[in-house]
């Protein structure tokens, strides 16, 4: 809370306006490469424009379409499904793995930590191509399944029910490592006395983690949630490489829709609208998670 009495009187020290001069260089760069494009996108979102001929002002029509047009609504719903795969699952798996790895003293723990984190280091396009090959109708996944007598020959990326979860699972694989490493670091700073106290009170391993480890990880969970939710909402590369939004648009996501509309279909206004809505959504979600994490624990 700012002190109310301070604001009424003249501020002490140098006149404040000079401060803006100091930030001016950075502000100019920010304005030219971020602020101006954002404002331009907002202004474009009120037009129907094919990128070539004169655009026509359509008011809020594009925004209404995001809500009413099923082909525009669907990508946002798909993005929400991806949040489960990119955020909820990795955090859950990450918590379990971190709890295990912090308790068990395995030889070569560093090696496992590296392996789990490795997907984060590989370029997403490479990840997408590799997983496309794994999911192929005659690919390794189907080979394994048919060897186990569980069928096979399923076109994982070619059937509407499977395509989105298939892409989502790649996200789970990608972000679990990030979560594990974050949570391990968080658990390492918990004072051992707390665990000792819990144990003396008769808590088992699960109870011990829930009572001591989990609360200590509040901050890390928030960071992981923000990073993964943003990644889920703005997924583009995985979808572009693995499915191009197909089959039958069952994996189209907002970012892909922005690209498709702006550069393929020539609906720049509508593309800008999706971009603006997506930006607002990501901002709102990030602020929400931040609020939740910073709320007083007591």
């Amino acid at each position, binding site marked *: 809370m700012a002190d109310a009495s301070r604001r009424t009187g003249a501020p002490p020290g140098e006149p404040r306006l000079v401060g803006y001069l100091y930030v001016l260089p950075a502000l100019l760069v920010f304005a030219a490469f971020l602020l101006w494009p954002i404002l331009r996108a*907002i*202004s474009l979102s009120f037009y129907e424009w094919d990128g*070539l*001929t004169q655009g026509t002002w359509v008011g809020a029509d594009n925004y209404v379409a995001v809500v009413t047009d099923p082909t525009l609504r669907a990508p946002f719903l798909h993005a929400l499904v991806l949040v489960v795969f990119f955020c909820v699952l990795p955090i859950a798996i990450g918590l379990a793995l971190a709890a295990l790895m912090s308790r068990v003293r395995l030889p070569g723990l560093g090696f496992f930590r590296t392996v789990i984190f490795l997907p984060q280091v590989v370029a997403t396009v490479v990840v997408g191509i590799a997983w496309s090959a794994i999911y*192929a*109708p005659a690919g390794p996944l189907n080979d394994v399944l048919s060897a186990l007598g569980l069928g096979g020959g399923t*076109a994982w990326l070619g*059937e509407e029910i499977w395509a989105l979860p298939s892409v989502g699972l790649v996200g789970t694989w990608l972000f679990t490592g990030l979560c594990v490493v974050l949570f391990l670091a968080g658990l390492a700073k918990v004072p051992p006395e707390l665990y000792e106290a819990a144990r003396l009170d008769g808590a088992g391993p699960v109870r011990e983690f829930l009572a001591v480890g989990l609360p200590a990880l509040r901050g890390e969970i928030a960071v992981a949630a923000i990073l993964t939710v943003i990644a889920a909402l703005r997924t583009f590369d995985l979808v572009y490489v693995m499915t191009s939004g197909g089959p*039958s*648009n069952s994996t189209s996501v907002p970012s892909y829709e922005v690209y498709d509309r702006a550069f393929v279909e020539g609906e720049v206004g509508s593309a800008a609208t999706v971009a603006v809505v997506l930006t607002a959504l990501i901002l709102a979600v990030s602020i929400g998670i931040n609020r939740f994490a910073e709320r007083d624990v007591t």
Partner: protein
Amino acid sequence: MTSSIPRTRFLAVTAAIVLATTASACAPGSDDEGGGTDTAAADVDTDVAGMGDLTLTVWDQEVRSGQDKQLDALNASFEKEYPNVTIDRVSRSFEDLNRTLRLAINSDDAPDVVQANNGRSIMGAFVEAGQLRPLDGYADAYGWDERFSADVRSLASYTEDGATFGAGNLYGVPQTGELVGLWYSKSKLDDLGIEVPRTTADMETALQKAAAAGEVPIQFGNKEGWPGIHDFGFVQNQFVPAEEIRDLGFGVAGSSWTTPENEQAADLISSWAESGYFTEGFNGFDYDPAWQDFAEGDGVFVIAGTWLLADLAAAMGDDVGFALPPTGESGEMAVTGGTGLPFAITESTENADAAAAYLDHITSPDAMTDIQEAGNLPVYGADAALAEGPQADVLEAWGAANAQGAIVPYLDYATPDFYDLLTAQVQDLLAGSQSPSDFLATLEKEYTSFTGSGG
């Protein structure tokens, strides 16, 4: 964490800035009239040598090896003939070219010559925006009307407002031809004891025999969606009269998708999918691996374009053959096809006359000979007698299709959104999640909403 600026004031200022920018920024885009600058035949300057030093920037997508070399050679011979001209060639893949051209064509340093895809979403949009020049004056001056058949010219023709495709002014000239037909493995056909299918009934028998023998009847990878347009077109060619398909492709008002003939075509192709005549899991299988599997001896047929000629011939030699689609009950031939991407002249070029001379050069009879020798299908003047193996099949098919006026345009040309719709719909139809009649009804709805239902 409350900031020292009250939130309401912050919001008000932001809103004001946004409103001000939105209101002050004028409508995006230029308000050029459609059509582009016309040059009358009498005003065409064909004396390139007398134009002084100039540079022509050419954007093309001829990146595959045969075509790439062929165009390099033609550029070099043009520069040799006119030492005052420098050609600045910018080559990109088909997809990259389509994505970047839209942004580049109305900028100050737009290229002089561009390869623009025929359909409404690229060439049609450019014509509507007045970014391409009509070439009719040049066509008169250089005699292009004799050079290119009416079918070929119609595929690069639009009215000035870009609204009608297939008629009006000429906006581009192509180098190569293209047909979607039936690639087959001769040794597989021999093993199965079947002839190259010439009728719908033959095709059905061939597919049954292939499936019974445990072969993949048709190699098919449709993850990208667009291959499905070709396979559907191949079946449609056997039922729907060529004239009707042409109208549907060009988006002519009054045409309809919900006809009994289209229904027969949709029924047949979905029964192919049901009977397992396509590669298992085709909707999750990529296009390239599919024809590559065929080239490696897995599969009896591939329904694809003549653009695979060089690759298939290299991999399979004389074992691969190419045939036009079978004919249906009418016995009338129809085949999906067209031309390679036409070369067009941009509105913003300062050297339109030199650019036209360049177009004339790269589509000259000598150029066609080079294209055939490079293993491709020249848009005119092909000499099947000089070719052998699969190239002879392709050249013959092209000659026959042109002579019979049997070439019908790609179905996705119809409306700007038709490509996206058709790819998804064919995937649904073949996956069995959409019935043939619902499939056609969905296409009809988009089609009539664009062309106007009346007719």
